[in-house]
């Protein structure tokens, strides 16, 4: 599948934003979110900003962005529509939660029923939105690397890790005390590593789903070679579904994602556990930047490694 920049930016950016917002909601409900305005103002602005940038980026790749409201109508059957409804719906409770937290004197130890309720609703909607994003891909039967049960876990754990790393870096940069957030980030990274390892092993070990033979209605075992394509130049189907460039370097890119996305941030966070001051700040920033470079590569691979059934008509022997 063609890895469109807009979709990579959308999933990584909104994933990070929802991860931040989810953790802020949960930790606020538990009385663990710092009340310090130097921390909470940028935290809310960055979280909601990342979500908005992601959503705008996904709008940009539409042929008719001005008709986007129509995409909210088919939530009964379409995961894309559900995602749109949930993404827009999250802004309501999240906005009220942010207003309450920023403008009213909240006792962090016992935040009050209104804040707890808003934070719970916001957290649930964050998870539901990221889950819907992942199900857009996981529900597509022609793409065996996407139509898998572990795809939603990949999106959810990486969104969680991403949000935790950003909060950890922000707390260090603003000098706020945010006990345990680096541990939360470590847990997120380990979960993400486990899920992605399982996923990458799984897609390599999977048996072929369809063959060129079954694609043209011959017996499944029949050996079929493409002799003459229907057109001389690549068409929409090949440009959109037949992407090959990154697949060639998949092994190297996967190793890069492992090292930069998981190895470096885990190591840096572990070193930072016993430190404080400017060095800790630098390490927290390095962890966040490194992990997000890794997540962008992971998302690139998610698209580039995905093979679509239509490629069987254009030379692929099996998918």
């Amino acid at each position: 599948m063609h890895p469109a920049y807009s979709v990579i930016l959308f999933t990584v950016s909104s994933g990070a934003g929802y991860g931040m917002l989810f953790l802020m909601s949960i930790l606020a409900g538990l009385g663990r979110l710092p009340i310090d305005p130097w921390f909470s103002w940028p935290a809310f602005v960055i979280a909601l900003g990342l979500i908005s940038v992601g959503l705008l980026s996904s709008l940009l790749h539409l042929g008719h962005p001005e008709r986007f409201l129509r995409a909210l109508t088919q939530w009964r059957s379409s995961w894309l529509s559900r995602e749109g409804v949930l993404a827009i719906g999250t802004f309501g409770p999240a906005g009220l939660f942010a207003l309450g937290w920023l403008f009213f004197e909240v006792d962090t130890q016992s935040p009050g029923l209104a804040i707890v309720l808003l934070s719970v609703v916001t957290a649930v909607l964050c998870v539901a939105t990221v889950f819907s994003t992942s199900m857009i891909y996981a529900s597509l039967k022609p793409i065996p690397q996407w139509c898998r049960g572990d795809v939603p876990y990949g999106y959810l754990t990486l969104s969680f890790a991403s949000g935790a790393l950003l909060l950890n870096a922000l707390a260090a940069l603003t000098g706020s005390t945010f006990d345990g957030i680096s541990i939360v980030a470590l847990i997120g990274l380990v979960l993400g590593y486990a899920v992605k390892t399982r996923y990458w092993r799984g897609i390599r070990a999977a048996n072929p789903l369809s063959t060129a033979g079954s694609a043209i209605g011959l017996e499944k075992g029949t050996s079929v070679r493409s002799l003459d394509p229907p057109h001389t130049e690549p068409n929409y189907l090949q440009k959109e579904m037949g992407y090959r460039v990154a697949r060639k370097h998949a092994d190297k890119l996967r190793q890069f994602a492992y090292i930069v996305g998981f190895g470096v941030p885990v190591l840096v966070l572990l070193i930072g556990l016993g430190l404080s001051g400017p060095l800790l700040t630098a390490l927290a920033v390095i962890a966040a930047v490194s992990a997000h470079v890794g997540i962008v590569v992971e998302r690139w691979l998610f698209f580039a490694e995905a093979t679509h059934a239509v490629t069987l008509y254009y030379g692929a022997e099996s998918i």
Partner: protein
Amino acid sequence: MTDLPATTPTRKLGLVIDLDTCVGCHACAVNCKEWNSGGFAAPLSDTDPYGAEPDGVWFNRVHSFEADTKGAGRTVHFPRSCLHCDNALCVTVCPTGASYKREEDGIVLVDEDKCIGCKLCSWACPYGAREYDVNEGVMKKCTLCIDRIYNENLDEAQRVPACVSTCPVSARHFGDLSDPHSAVSQLVADRGGQPLMPELGYAPVNRYLSPRSETSQAAALEPTADSVEGKFLQWVDRLLS
């Protein structure tokens, strides 16, 4: 609504394509482009049509494959278009209601005025039936020529999809595949018509008739030059071949 029809469509209009007789002439694809450039889904935009990298929207593409059938290789020409699936995922993934499957005849269509051009339906189709129109910013697909098959201004013989009407070897057949007595259903029953990629569960309506077995003919295609005796006859053989 992008839900599939609640009840099974009363009729299932579709195509039966005979891969044994198809000669791969692309006439069906060309006539499809010609008719539909002025039809329901018009225009079928082209980019750089006379340049180095021509591209454009086509609803019908003819591939040629080499297949090893029972030890003998043969060329299989394969026209590919929308199969109007019973379980059309391209319809249910649509977020706007632009894609729909008609209850009365099972035809899958796009309402271009509602399409936002998200391309998700083309990802959801394993058969590559949907092509994006970059000029219009919407998705396009085979309409089974709804503007011909119900068109009372045409002679009755012409009320078939453009691809069917133009096929010079009658490799394409159009009809109601839900009626077991229709000519197309009979063809499917007689020749063992196949659905494409049934393992994906789309339940396509269109069927393809596999090439007939041809073991005796393949055996007759042995090279003859080796058996010709004498220099002169070998020379004649070379001259004539």
